[in-house]
């Protein structure tokens, strides 16, 4: 989403780069952050919620085979199911699928217009969405850190090229770029990135977000390389790579840690958007985005088809966001009370 721009331009306080001045000895800034995070019940609760969702989705195959006895793509338009004593067809004659039966073993959350079990699909879809989100985040972070480090440290022509390339990617609205790349790769493909594999949306989303992370990192590297300890390391004869790895990178760690949940949340949202538009996960594979798209077609007859995947999506993203926010608060050493000196 284009609005991510505003979120990611918030500065990471560089007080973490300075010595901790009035801390008791031996307590590093990360231990302090961890302590602060532990005290933030809300953030921890939402972090737990996210883990719960992840676990549930990972257990999709278990649910599918052992509990619901349905595979996610099994179409069952004319089948019947017992609901509260009555026998009903899964998809009625006017093409309206049944709503939630609240029976764990049969169509717990209802069926979609192809007779597929919604509960099973929502879990499998979650698996896909979360997997894509995670891989995309990994791609973004690794490449962005690399590019940010290299262009910020070496500067010059290399920096010029990288920065221009980043600017071009950045100027494209994220969704449009995602659709463009997604469609192209799905249709044409480069090597293993082809067709309906999940890697296509993952790579696409990963690439789209690179500039949002690489630019701030580059900015921070530009600042860091002017600091005395870098100069000192040069005097000691350390090579460029040793300096980047051993001196600069550790100072970026708080920035990196804060970015991860942010990118993850946006990656999950972007995947849903792309899938909704048909440029992400391809049918018949489920994803929260595709399910919402299918569900919208059935409004007003049936709303649960849209509501179920939508709620899961919102909950997942919300929990990542709240936890990420708590993480950022914990790493920010600004005390609640500023004591004037």
């Amino acid at each position, binding site marked *: 989403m284009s609005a991510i721009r505003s979120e990611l331009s918030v500065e990471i306080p560089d007080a973490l780069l300075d010595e901790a001045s*009035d801390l008791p000895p031996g307590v590093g800034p990360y231990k302090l952050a961890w302590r602060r995070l532990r*005290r933030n019940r809300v953030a921890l609760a939402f972090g737990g919620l996210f883990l719960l969702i992840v676990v549930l989705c990972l257990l999709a195959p278990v649910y599918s085979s052992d509990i619901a006895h349905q595979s996610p793509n099994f179409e069952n338009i004319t089948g019947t199911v017992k609901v509260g004593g009555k026998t009903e067809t899964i998809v009625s004659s006017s093409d309206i699928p049944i709503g939630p039966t609240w029976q764990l073993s049969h169509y717990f959350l209802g069926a979609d217009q192809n007779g597929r079990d919604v509960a099973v699909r929502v879990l499998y879809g979650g698996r896909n969405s979360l997997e894509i989100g995670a891989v995309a985040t990994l791609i973004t972070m690794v490449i962005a850190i690399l590019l940010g480090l290299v262009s910020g440290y070496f500067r010059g022509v290399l920096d010029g090229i990288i920065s221009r390339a980043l600017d071009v990617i950045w100027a494209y609205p994220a969704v449009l770029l995602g659709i463009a790349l997604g469609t192209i790769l799905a249709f044409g493909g480069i090597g293993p990135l082809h067709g309906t594999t999940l890697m296509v949306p993952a790579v696409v989303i990963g690439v789209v977000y690179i500039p949002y992370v690489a630019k701030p990192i580059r900015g921070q590297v530009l600042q860091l390389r002017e600091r005395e300890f870098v100069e000192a390391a040069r005097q000691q004869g350390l090579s460029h790579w040793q300096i980047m790895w051993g001196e600069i990178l550790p100072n970026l760690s708080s920035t990196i840690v804060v970015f991860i949940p942010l990118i993850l949340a946006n990656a999950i949202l972007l995947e849903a958007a792309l899938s909704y538009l048909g440029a992400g996960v391809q049918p018949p594979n489920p994803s929260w985005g595709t399910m919402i798209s299918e569900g919208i077609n059935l409004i007003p007859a049936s709303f649960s088809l849209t509501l179920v995947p939508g709620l899961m999506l919102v909950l997942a993203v919300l929990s990542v966001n709240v936890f990420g926010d708590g993480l950022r608060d914990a790493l920010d050493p600004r*005390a*609640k*009370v500023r*004591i*004037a*000196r």
Partner: protein
Amino acid sequence: MSAAAPLLEVSDLKVSFETEDGTVKAVDGVSFSVRAGEVVAVVGESGSGKSVTAMTLMGLTRGPNARFEGVATFEGRDLVAAPEDELRRIRGGDIAMVFQDPMSSLDPVYRIGDQIVEQIRAHDNEISKAAALDRAVELMERVGVPNARARLRSYPHEFSGGMRQRVMIAMALSCSPKLLIADEPTTALDVTIQAQILEELRQLRQDTGAGIILVTHDLGVVADIADRVVVMYAGRVVEQGTLDELFYDPQHPYTWGLLGSITRVDSDRSKRLPAIPGTPPSLLRPPQGCHFRPRCPHAFEKCTEVPELTARVPANPDHLDRCWLEPERKRKLRVVDGRIGLASETTVIA
């Protein structure tokens, strides 16, 4: 100095802040007074509570986590407990403040002229903008800003550090304050500018008879301009008296340490620069009794009891200090290597 009632009388001021780690006692019982036309220097290192004291007088430390005790009487009113709107009228009006870092103390998006005018009009809502600008020019000229009328339209970042501090002083003077509080006004400036700023302050005292509270950690500045000195350590006043009393007959080991750490042209170059060993205590869990005890080489059993701030030299009833040592012993102990300083080894009290 007139014998009239003091301009400001601070009595047993206590300021503490509630933080997530506990209560920080930033100011723990501070008392002093300032008379019209007098310069009182409040000296101490970072964390001594001197800035908190100064800012509390203007009500700038008020907040949900701040707790106050004690009284600060100014013209018959107590500043500590005064309601906010009363305090607001005093701020910038009868009492004005100059801050440490002129670079960050001025709003970067407004012109200097507008910022001075803003203060003038906050205390006089009938004056016209033109008249206020005239007054601003007057003030800028008084503090020695060249080309004042044109410079009114400049932005803060277009001034040098020294000029910016002068502008801040001009702004503070705009409503003819009776008391000026200067919090480390020269710390962020280099030595030559420092001298000029101090000259401004001296001039101000002479011209208007205002009282000045000068918060600083630099004894050189103190020697230059102060009439009386209040030495603070870890939230408490440990010594106070006239400039001469402090420099020639200091009673508290901390003061000896401060005096001893002044480098002099004639000091022995082969010896290391004397510094007070150790670090200031945490204000969350201060040491029991005298706050200076852990760093003091002359500490003895009585020091676990909080020393009272009283006059221990009978000849000077206004020279107060917080040290249990006998004045006789003090006179011996404070001489280290031929001058006043703090001994580096523990001296056994016989």
